[in-house]
């Protein structure tokens, strides 16, 4: 069953078409990997899905209903959780409180339930030792981890991950992929933007490649990675 569908969405900044007539569907339980050169419009696509940015044209459907006009928090309640490429923690709150907030509001839980959720996610993401520290004092990578943890705390059905493996060492990335697999096994649908291609390949069921705001390629990972256009434009290898 299709969980998320974008119908011909477009978005421009001034004269620049950042998202150009993109149509895309994600089935429940699937993990979609998004690739594309820097500035192709990947993050913008996330912004359009999460509602942080309004589409200029086109329609966003989620779980069978039109969410194009919904506010970001309404989309979050509907089950879309996101992380930001540039981490956006609630800097003056503790890490634990960051997660409790996400669970209370995004996950629409009571405070006590939220504590449990937060506790669980802290363990899962290895942030337990930082639980009572102000989130603003974390290092870049811990902040990225917090992004993931916070998104998980909203108990999402669809998880949007924007470059969470960047900056991880190889073994660390492997551990991350392991955990994402477990999340996936719980039935969570994911869209993952990542430049660390090998990490992405180890999880994605399908790839979607964007260039200049348009779809360049779509399909099974192996096929897409062998696509000469993708190799040239994205990997920088002559086919």
């Amino acid at each position, binding site marked *: 069953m299709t969980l998320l569908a974008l119908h011909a969405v477009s978005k421009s900044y001034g004269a620049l078409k950042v998202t150009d007539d993109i149509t895309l569907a994600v089935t429940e339980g699937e993990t979609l990997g998004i690739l594309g050169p*820097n*500035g192709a419009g990947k993050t913008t696509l996330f912004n359009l899905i999460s509602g942080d940015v309004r589409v200029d044209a086109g329609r966003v459907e989620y779980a069978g209903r039109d969410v194009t006009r919904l506010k970001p928090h309404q989309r979050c309640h509907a089950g879309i959780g996101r992380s930001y490429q540039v981490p956006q923690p609630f800097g003056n709150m503790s890490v634990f409180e960051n997660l409790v907030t996400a669970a209370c509001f995004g996950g629409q839980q009571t405070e006590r339930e939220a504590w449990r959720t937060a506790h669980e996610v802290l363990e899962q993401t290895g942030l337990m030792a930082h639980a009572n520290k102000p989130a603003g004092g974390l290092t870049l990578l811990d902040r990225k981890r917090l992004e993931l943890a916070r998104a998980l705390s909203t108990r999402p059905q669809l998880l949007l991950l924007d470059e969470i493996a960047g*900056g991880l*060492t*190889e073994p660390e990335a492997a551990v991350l992929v392991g955990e994402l697999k477990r999340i996936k096994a719980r039935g969570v649908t994911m869209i993952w933007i990542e430049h660390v291609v090998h990490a992405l390949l180890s999880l994605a069921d399908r790839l979607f490649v964007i260039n200049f705001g348009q779809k360049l390629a779509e399909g099974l990972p192996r096929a897409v990675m062998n696509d000469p256009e993708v190799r040239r434009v994205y990997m920088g290898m002559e086919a």
Partner: protein
Amino acid sequence: MTALLDTRALKAFYGDAQALFGIDFSLDRGELVAIIGANGAGKSTFLKSLTGLVRAPIDAIRFKGEPIGGLPPGDIVRRGLAMVPEGRRLFASLSVEENLLMGATPARKGPWNLQRLYALFPILAEKRNQPGTSLSGGQQQMVALGRALMSNPEVLLCDELSLGLAPIVIREIYAAMPSITAEGMTVVIVEQDVTMARQVSKRIYCFQEGRVSLQGHSADLTREQISQAYFGIAEAAHA
């Protein structure tokens, strides 16, 4: 010949918390040295100490034989030490070109100017009059690198240069490195991708919990040595 840059027992603190516990490090002219290490190992802190953003005892850092520890960042950059900061940090209200020109503030003589940069990154020439922050992450990284080059430093310090970059850009940037070092510029990169670090660098320092846990010529170090240096345990090869 004495080293171009060396540190002796360099310690650094954030308030009461110690981040570096005595780093001995040295750099010869024209080298490309990579620093690797797990998240939170102190790599960024080390680079910040070198450039004066984190306080250091005056004698702990010597550049061309002179002590420069704890000097204001402005003085250090005028002496020829430039940094590409973690997370790009472009000036939001300046255009791409103005951002690059900011790098030329110390007014040092050398081969790098706008023309040459635009030749290296043609996309920047295209976007020269756009605000720097409206670029994609990767494009911003190019501006950040270009901005540091514009000061014509003798030593270029790059923090997580490839973070968030598409493979093609990483390739391009590392492809440009030899031409940069060939002109006598010395480069230090912090890199998570160990394979890449070994490929491009002459020597490697591995940091662990604020100390140097391993150093040597890139070609001589084995994968096992490196993973041991990362995590401090020998049997560290399963995921």
